[in-house]
């Protein structure tokens, strides 16, 4: 009887300690965000990915939004061929994500923005893409458009700094609207393949 009391007391003490120190019971529900009364609920989303086969297309064709073929270029990249992707909705666990994106730009010198480095420029960029979240056996996709700036860095790397707006989807996200920030870091090409490793990150919100 005494041992049973001590076991019970120990259990209570451990639970209290875990709660005080920030540990949460495994079955505790994630906190629901509170929102203003008349608004549709919005949820934080975050996604990131890695690609090993990004490529620039400056062959004056093959880019979706080119109207001036003399100055057309685009960068396409995805999670295929050894890339990766992760998607997180609100406080839920991360799920695998496959993704693809195309970024188009008009490299007319009149459209280039000089940076402080003489060899580095920025160009306004527009594009679109798709993310496919693999949630168990279910696949939920979201389509998005993006605009921003693609820039050379001072050491021949590249970055895209943009924002995106969701433009349709399937599954759980068939009626979703959302937006946020989108960044891509493009490593310098150190191989003869013409492929660029790159990493992508989405942060934003989603309303269903």
């Amino acid at each position, binding site marked *: 009887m005494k041992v049973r009391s001590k076991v019970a007391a120990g259990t209570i003490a451990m639970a209290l300690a875990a709660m005080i120190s920030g540990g949460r019971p495994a079955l505790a529900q994630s906190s629901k965000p509170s*929102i203003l009364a008349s608004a549709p609920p*919005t949820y934080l989303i975050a996604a990131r990915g890695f690609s090993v086969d990004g490529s620039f297309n400056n062959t004056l064709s093959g880019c979706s*939004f080119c109207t001036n073929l003399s100055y057309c270029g685009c960068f396409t990249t995805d999670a295929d061929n050894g890339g990766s992707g992760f998607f997180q909705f609100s406080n839920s666990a991360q799920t695998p994500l496959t993704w693809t994106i195309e970024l188009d730009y008009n490299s007319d010198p009149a*459209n280039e923005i000089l940076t402080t480095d003489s060899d580095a420029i920025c160009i306004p960029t527009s594009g679109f893409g798709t993310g496919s979240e693999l949630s168990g056996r279910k696949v939920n996709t979201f389509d998005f458009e993006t*605009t921003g700036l693609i820039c050379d860095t001072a050491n021949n790397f590249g970055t895209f700094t943009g*924002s995106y707006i969701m433009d349709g989807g399937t599954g759980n996200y068939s009626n979703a609207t959302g937006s946020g920030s989108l960044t891509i870091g493009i490593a310098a090409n150190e191989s003869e393949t013409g492929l660029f490793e790159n990493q992508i990150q989405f942060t934003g919100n989603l309303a269903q």
Partner: protein
Amino acid sequence: MLNRIKLLLSITGLFLLTVGVNPALAKAKAAQPTPTGVQTSYAMEALGTSIDGYWATDTASWDWMYTNGCSFCTGDPSCNCFYSDSTGGSGLFQVNAINQYTTMVWTQELDYTTYSAILSGSPPDACYAASGEGQMEDIQGSTANSLQYSTTGLLCVTPDGQNQTYTGSYVITGGTGLYENYQGSGNIGHAIYGRLPSQVISQIQYTGNYVPPIPTPSSEPTPSPWTDVATPTP
């Protein structure tokens, strides 16, 4: 019996150490000291939806009188701006990614001039350098704490020609309540759905950090408790 108690105590101690509770006599290692001279910085994230955004401009009358619809350009019909807020919409504010969300009331104005148009990556859609200002008001129970900010960035029409996105950064210019004298900065992503002619739906997202005000050092010299203590001799 004694062994059982020892076993129970050992398991309890191991568990407490695992979840991060330090023994009372352990050195204070959990609280990492802030490097001298470096202020604590807090990550913040906020998001919101607006259902009543609208575009405005400066309009001319009789070629000499203007109705200035935008704050940062006066008498300039090439000036355009986009207003949005959380009235009827929504707003959430979160500090340090682990705290509870709180309600946020927000408002923002983005100004740009059509003279600054440059081709986007999907011609003939354009991008514009844009500037603006706004406010995030974090409502915690009965108290409201606000942050005012200025923002600059790029506003572009998306490839479908219907929507816009704004990619910018912000710097905190003022605050009230808990955030009085705070400093901070971060990114803004703002998507504007242009499908409704009169009421434009938009979504905004802030990510960034802010820093509490740096305490003013006291003009009084700090008394040292060691002043009168003689150096111990071996």
